[in-house]
């Protein structure tokens, strides 16, 4: 039973079957002993021997596995084949006839869900056009993304010079204009987002004189449907060359792997920027609503030194959150509660200190990108969810973290003074 594999092709051995039927055959004993619960009868019908079903469990009781080997993945690792990573089939485009250019937002250096939807849309557009097309992704700034291939990027233009760091729409626009002349893309796709996609798309549209379709939520090669009049009407129109697409316009790629071949731009565009980025200004993190905060430091029942927690939040520049227990015990105000009955947060970084990870709490952090857990219990659910967990006393670790952050701030202000001088 244990090496029975349901995926195996059933091969009949007529001689063995004949021996098994003939109890007087000298080899009957060897065949019958290896006989499993199910055999093909002489007419080809499946015969079950009820005495042979199941196996004897560790405590001597007979067990019947009714999951037909599917339970194996959870426990005993019987089906080692299924546990292996499946290599998705590679989709190759050699000498593409045309390009569709996608300019992802790359918030925090990674493709967002919105970006992946748009790459999926690009492939949908390609499949509607004759000839083989490739999706060219133009990414600005430092990239931390490792899965361009499974996201559906055929060609990757990574512009991560210093000149593209920070807010430099004019420089980026110049690069896109070069891409326009070098690749003559069939379509330009931008995410219609506040993370810069809409800004860059509008700039390019004005520069190359295209009339873009914005807030597009359905698109094919002929027509697009886009929201107009502040989202209260649907406009159906011919597909222009430049689209700015809403979230969930198409499904992301999930069944193929792509080449993500690097390409380069010939000449580095240089512009005299009229906008000068002075960096982000400090905003009071606690003035930002919990639902849209980017970085949350959240406290649970495992916090015993609340003054330390508040100072950690302020020196890290994090918005404060709390579990229900911390709120019920009166340490935090109700509007700071994260979870099913509190706020559903969307933070990029969620630092959970002394929170066990009850399901009501986990629901609230479902959309968080990276969770970091500080907890004394290595087996709790928060640790299972977290990308980084440290096991130890919250007070000691927060103390060290505050020291590090204070050093960092001191360096920062010293550097700032030098800049100013």
């Amino acid at each position, binding site marked *: 039973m244990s090496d029975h594999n349901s995926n195996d092709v059933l091969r009949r051995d007529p001689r063995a079957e004949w021996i098994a039927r003939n109890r007087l055959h000298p080899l009957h004993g060897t065949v019958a002993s290896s006989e499993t619960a199910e055999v093909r009868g002489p007419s080809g019908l499946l015969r079950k021997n009820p005495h042979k079903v199941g196996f004897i469990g560790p405590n001597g009781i007979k067990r019947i596995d009714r999951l037909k080997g599917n339970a194996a993945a959870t426990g005993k690792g019987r089906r080692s084949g299924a546990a292996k990573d499946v290599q998705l089939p590679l989709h190759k485009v050699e000498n593409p006839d045309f390009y569709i250019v996608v300019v992802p937002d790359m918030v*925090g250096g990674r493709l967002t869900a919105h970006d992946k939807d748009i790459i999926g849309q690009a492939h949908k557009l390609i499949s509607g056009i004759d000839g083989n097309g490739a999706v060219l992704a133009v990414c600005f700034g430092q990239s931390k993304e490792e899965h361009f291939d499974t996201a559906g990027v055929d060609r990757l233009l990574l512009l991560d010079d210093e000149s593209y760091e920070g807010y430099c729409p004019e420089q980026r626009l110049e690069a896109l204009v070069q891409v326009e002349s070098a690749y003559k893309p069939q379509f330009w796709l931008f995410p219609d987002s506040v993370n810069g996609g809409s800004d860059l798309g509008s700039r390019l549209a004005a520069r190359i004189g295209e009339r873009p379709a914005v807030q597009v939520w359905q698109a094919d090669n002929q027509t697009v449907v886009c929201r107009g009049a502040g989202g209260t009407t*649907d406009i159906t129109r011919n597909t222009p060359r430049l689209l700015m697409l809403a979230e969930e316009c198409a499904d992301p790629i999930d069944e193929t792997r792509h080449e993500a071949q690097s390409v380069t731009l010939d000449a580095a565009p240089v512009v005299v920027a009229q906008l000068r980025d002075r960096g982000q200004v400090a905003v009071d993190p606690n003035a930002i609503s919990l639902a849209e905060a980017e970085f949350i430091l959240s406290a649970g029942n495992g916090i015993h030194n609340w003054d330390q927690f508040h100072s950690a939040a302020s020196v890290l520049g994090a918005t404060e959150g709390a579990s229900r227990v911390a709120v019920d015990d009166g340490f935090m105000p109700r509007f700071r509660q994260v979870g099913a009955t509190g706020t559903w947060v969307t933070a990029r970084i969620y630092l959970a200190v002394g929170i066990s990870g009850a399901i009501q709490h986990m629901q609230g952090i479902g959309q968080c990108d990276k969770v970091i857990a500080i907890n004394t219990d290595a087996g709790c659910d928060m640790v299972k969810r977290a990308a980084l967990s*440290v096991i130890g006393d919250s007070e000691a670790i927060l103390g060290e973290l505050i020291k590090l952050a204070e050093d960092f701030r001191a360096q920062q202000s010293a550097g700032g003074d030098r800049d100013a001088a």
Partner: protein
Amino acid sequence: MQPNQFKVDVASKLKIVSLVSVGKHPQSGRVRRSDQDSRAVELGLKLTGDNRSGESLTVLHAGDPREQSLRSYAGMGLKSVRVLQLDPSADAILPLGQHLLQCGADIVLTGVRAESGESSGMVPYQLAEKLGWPIVPRVANIVSVEGGVAEVLQALPRGQRRSVMVQLPFIASVDSAAPEARQSAFGPASRALMDIEVVSASVDMTRESWEEVPARKRPKRLKVVKAKTAAERFKAATAKSQGEGGKVMKNESAVEQAQAIFDLLKEEGVLR
């Protein structure tokens, strides 16, 4: 946010133009002053202050001068509203650009997106391209204007702000994060002067082929489970979502653990 304290050059007489459009209430669909445009007027009013030092604010609309919602902009305390009279379906970019050049505007404020029509948000970009001026999108505030350079606060997602320096003249689109517009008073609104100039503009032909219907509800994306057997489907429906199993630091000292957290925070760029 701190109260507005503008540092405005007295020598140069700043000329601000706010472009306004006809708004539409998102629920009732009634015609109103557009939310972002009225914030642009508000920002213009704040910048010009009490007109002591000769700054001026022009509120400019291209379209039908009899439009009632224009009066509600005027009710914010304007003596007049300047209207370039043209067919509302015509392309307003050319006449607007010409007018802005003629009147010598220093700062042009618009909304991010109109509440009616195509609402593509392209007007500020096209004007900027036409005039060759810089554009700052999604402005929350203008902090100071000194020596021909303005310091502008840009609204970023997640309640963040970015400070940008920009040369005059420039175009800025005003975000919903900008200070809320003051109330519109009926008396001044009906007394305000409509300063009309008739201009000619080409009719927008491409739009005629478009089909416009009230917005349909977008279908929710379904979570498709690609399972082959019933057991896999059962597992997908009941299993707790588990992360990829992150890194667990158990036996390190608190210093090392804190360092690991700190490094991750820095790598993700949330420490600034």
